[in-house]
């Protein structure tokens, strides 16, 4: 048996290039469908994990997928906006903790996520350095946001205008970085977290400006009629919140009328969640409530369907490649006719000669499968990191 193995090995070693091509081809035929399945499964796990960790989402009626992707991954277009009254509505039911989100603005490429401190507890976000947000105009950066914006505690980041053509829009807000979060390998790493009220400042709904009753503001005042002061647009509005001007920042009207993009509802128990969902069943209800897992499962269903087509295609290619490999082996036998005859003449029985040839094929297939196995293990090992990076791009 050793001599058969030796002869087969020597043949393969002598024809290194041919062997390498065969091993590489068969290895890819085995590895690619398996690796694709591993990566897709891992992607599904990552997507589902974030969705499973978010019990319920409430937002204005519109695309459920947009609402879920915007609220979970801070990607996709901003969904239909609603008002803060919806967060109050959920909190007032007593069935769930309401965590409002306003995901609309960016600081360069990074999403600015306006929320409350409850979000940090909800997602178990931990500070790598600094402290959490305490005042208007402060922000906490996710780990990758800090890298991409090249900012740390003590630095500043500036909100980006929604449109370069929005010349009548509000000025960008300079925000102070007071903390950087530890990596979580989720969308939170990409975010610039601010207080909900800071996003309203970015939008220009909450603002600070000169005291119009003060003499310094006189050039900007058009008219005074009793308690009514009319000023022109030259009134200085602050684009950075400092201890000196923070007291001038003010709201107009009720906070409940201010915009948000979604509310994460965290029910106190299963029953509370069911009752809460029932509250949004009315046909004239302008809001939608959804379980993110349902939306993500639908999305994954589509991904898996596409994956099945890809795998089927790969299998067809694989069959063609195997047929080609078989052809290579058959042609190889013809080319080796004299070699086979020589082996017979020096005393090799037909069985032993056939053994050598079969062993050569077995070694090639064995090496291909072993290599594919090693690559699959490597893929499975590093898939979470790869998928997280890919998903966060």
């Amino acid at each position, binding site marked *: 048996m050793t001599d058969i193995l030796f002869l087969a090995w*020597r043949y393969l070693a002598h024809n290194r290039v041919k062997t390498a091509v065969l091993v590489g081809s068969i290895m890819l035929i085995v590895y690619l469908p398996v690796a694709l399945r591993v990566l897709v499964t891992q992607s599904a796990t990552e997507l589902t994990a974030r969705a499973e960790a978010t019990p319920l989402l409430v937002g204005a009626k519109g695309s459920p997928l947009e609402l879920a992707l915007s609220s979970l991954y801070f990607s996709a277009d901003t969904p239909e906006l609603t008002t803060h009254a919806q967060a109050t509505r959920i909190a007032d039911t007593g069935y769930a903790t309401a965590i409002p989100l306003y995901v609309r603005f960016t600081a360069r490429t990074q999403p600015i996520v306006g929320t409350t*401190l409850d979000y940090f*507890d909800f997602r178990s976000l931990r500070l790598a350095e600094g402290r959490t947000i305490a005042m208007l105009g402060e922000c906490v950066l996710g780990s990758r946001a800090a890298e991409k914006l090249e900012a740390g505690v003590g630095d500043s980041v500036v909100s980006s205008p929604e449109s370069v053509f929005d010349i009548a829009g509000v000025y960008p807000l300079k925000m102070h970085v007071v903390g950087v979060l530890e990596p979580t390998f989720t969308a939170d790493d990409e975010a610039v977290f601010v207080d909900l009220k800071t996003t309203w400042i970015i939008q*220009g709904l909450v603002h600070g400006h000169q005291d119009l009753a003060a003499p310094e503001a006189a050039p900007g005042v058009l008219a005074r009629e009793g308690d009514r002061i009319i000023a022109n*647009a030259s009134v200085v509005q602050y684009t950075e919140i400092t201890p000196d001007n923070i007291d001038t920042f003010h709201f107009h009207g009720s906070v409940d009328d201010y915009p948000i993009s979604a509310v994460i509802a965290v029910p106190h128990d299963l029953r509370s969640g069911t009752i809460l969902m029932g509250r949004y069943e009315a046909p004239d209800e302008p809001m939608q409530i959804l379980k993110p897992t349902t939306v993500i499962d639908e999305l994954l269903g589509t991904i898996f369907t596409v994956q099945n087509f890809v795998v089927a295609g790969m299998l067809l290619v694989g069959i063609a490649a195997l047929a080609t490999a078989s052809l290579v082996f058959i042609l190889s036998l013809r080319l080796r006719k004299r070699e086979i005859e020589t082996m017979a003449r020096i005393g090799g029985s037909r069985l032993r000669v056939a053994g050598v040839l079969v062993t050569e094929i077995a070694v090639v297939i064995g090496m291909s499968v072993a290599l594919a196995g090693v690559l699959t293990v490597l893929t499975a*090992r590093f898939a979470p990191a790869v998928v997280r990076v890919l998903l966060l791009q």
Partner: protein
Amino acid sequence: MTEGRSTMRHLLCALLILSIVIIGCGSKETADPQAVDQPPTDRLVVATVNYPLAYFADRLGGDLVEVVFPAPAGEDPVFWSPDTETIAEYQAADLILLNGAGYAKWVERTTLPASKMVDTSAAFADRYLEIEGTVTHSHGPEGEHEHQGWAFTTWLDPTLAIEHARAVAAALADALPDAPQAEIAERLAGLEADLTTLDERYAAAAQTIGDEPLLFSHPVYQYFIARYGLDGHQVHWEPDVEPDGTAWAELGHHLDHHDAAWMIWEGEPLDSTTVALAERGITSIVFDPCGNRPTEGSWLAVMQTNATHLERVAESIAAES
């Protein structure tokens, strides 16, 4: 033949080592760093924005709660602004009691956990009184808007103070589901009884005072005046500041159509002011709103002293008539 076997052995070894490396390179658990939230304490930590709420929380919660009211002595909590360390204290609390009615504007400008905040006047928001002299202004594309303001010293009406106390009790009961609820209810009943007695004393004194004109040194008595139907006029004097000529002139103007013989102060006025007022036939008394912790006694004790002072006014008016 030996060379071939050696090559095979090398290949097998390489595969074995590769397998060991793959299996061995597992991710290491990171050390548990400092969490954003603070470690829990045994007692419920309740932070408040003023002293009346601190008093209610302390009285209703007893040993179950640790009340945090960090405004420095001598500061008016309504205009005080905490620094970031103090804000962190509020953030770390289990429950944050707000007065509502726009009290403590700093809350709007800071980041506090929404799920822990309780507006203790939300139940009677429709009874807020608007501050006179609201400024309306307009500028830029958003057009005209008002800086509307509510009177915020709600607790000076004991019936509203009872509403505050009920909201505090409900918040404590929610936050302490395993605590003996009957105990909290019993304490609430005791506090409500004290506040009702206070209301009766105020009401009796106010009935005697009737429509006798009164001056109030500061615009913080709106709810008190409204509750008891007093003929009160509020000026804007500080007890520790000597009124200037303009202030006296304005007072004279007020007295022309509001002939008050009593001026009710937030704190003890300067002797010189008391004398100057007395020369104009105005007697000074103190009715402390007690928004911050008093130097001695409790909030209820201060309110009872206020009642005593008001009763003196009533007795004096009754004697004169």
